[in-house]
């Protein structure tokens, strides 16, 4: 039984309103949903193996992840229009989701022909100066501004949310943990696998897990935002 302090008397709260329980429930639901759609994609497409479904570039799982991130972007934009009092928050979240979606579609590689992710490319004279300046002006600076605004807004509420044990903070922490796991698998995996002598199978397995976790992260983000999106579309607040 979980209790919350309201005034001087402790009040029992149901398990369904407990943030830890809610977060765990959402994560389990998201995992089941992602597994179901992955199996459905394997069964419904003519692709021969799991590798083609999950780990291949532009395969069904990667397409699903990108589509869900960009779905989140459009829904958050609509929420910003529907709930004007929270427009700044919705717009900053929409921008973050758009960046994740574009990253999933490898826009950082094809938008200019050189990799925007690599810091060294920005002072590489091999690439045209006007392109590098355009990317800084149109992408890097707006992203920094959006990130700054989001951090400022979060800083104000994060302390209160921590002490009040609010559900959204738990969801945010789980989301960040999944993101860190994905990045670790992506960046560290290729260096660790040869040491463990797993070979090609290990590499593919790692890629499959990483792509699947990216799908889980996208769905988990929408599932976490869902109550707030519904509030916005119901005209509350």
């Amino acid at each position, binding site marked *: 039984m979980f209790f919350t302090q309201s005034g001087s008397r402790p009040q029992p709260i149901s398990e369904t309103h407990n943030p830890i329980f809610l977060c765990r429930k959402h994560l389990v639901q998201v995992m089941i949903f992602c597994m179901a*759609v992955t199996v459905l994609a394997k069964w*419904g497409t003519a692709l021969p193996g799991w590798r083609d479904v999950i780990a291949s570039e532009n395969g*069904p799982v990667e397409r699903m992840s990108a*589509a*869900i991130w960009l779905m989140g972007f459009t829904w958050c934009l609509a929420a910003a229009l529907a709930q004007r009092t929270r427009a700044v928050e919705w717009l900053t979240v929409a921008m973050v989701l758009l960046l994740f979606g574009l990253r999933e579609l490898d*826009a950082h590689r094809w938008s200019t*022909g050189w990799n925007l992710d690599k810091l060294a490319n920005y002072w590489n004279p091999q690439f045209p100066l006007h392109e590098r300046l355009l990317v800084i002006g149109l992408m890097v600076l707006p992203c920094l501004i959006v990130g700054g605004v989001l951090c400022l807004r979060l800083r104000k509420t994060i302390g209160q949310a921590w002490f009040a044990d609010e559900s959204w903070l738990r969801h945010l922490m789980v989301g960040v943990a999944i993101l860190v796991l994905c990045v670790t698998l992506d960046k560290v995996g290729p260096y660790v696998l040869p040491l463990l002598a797993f070979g090609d199978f290990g590499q593919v397995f790692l890629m499959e897990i990483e792509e699947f976790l990216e799908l889980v992260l996208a769905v988990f983000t929408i599932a976490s935002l869902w109550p707030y999106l519904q509030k916005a579309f119901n005209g509350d607040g």
Partner: protein
Amino acid sequence: MCCLKSWPYWILIVVICATWVLPEIPYYQDWMPYGYELGGIALVVMYLSFGCWSLGLYGFVMGGLSWRSDSLKSRLAFKVGLAALFLAIGLVLCYLKLMHLTLSV
């Protein structure tokens, strides 16, 4: 009817679009033309239209469900749904135009 308010149904629409509809649409290639050829932008536009389709349908379904109980809520949902559906159609047309331009160069 209450179950329609949960997220899996609306994400499923996008999943179906990305897995089965996308490979069937005109001009789609597994490897989009990159660089300045507008193909990548066209692909992003198409993905955005999937989000708009699901939002449009959500607006209409929620508007219909709350039609009798709350007309204000219902009107807002219909408005969001209608705007999203118009936007989705516009984005699909934009995709077709961009791909046409890309391939005609």
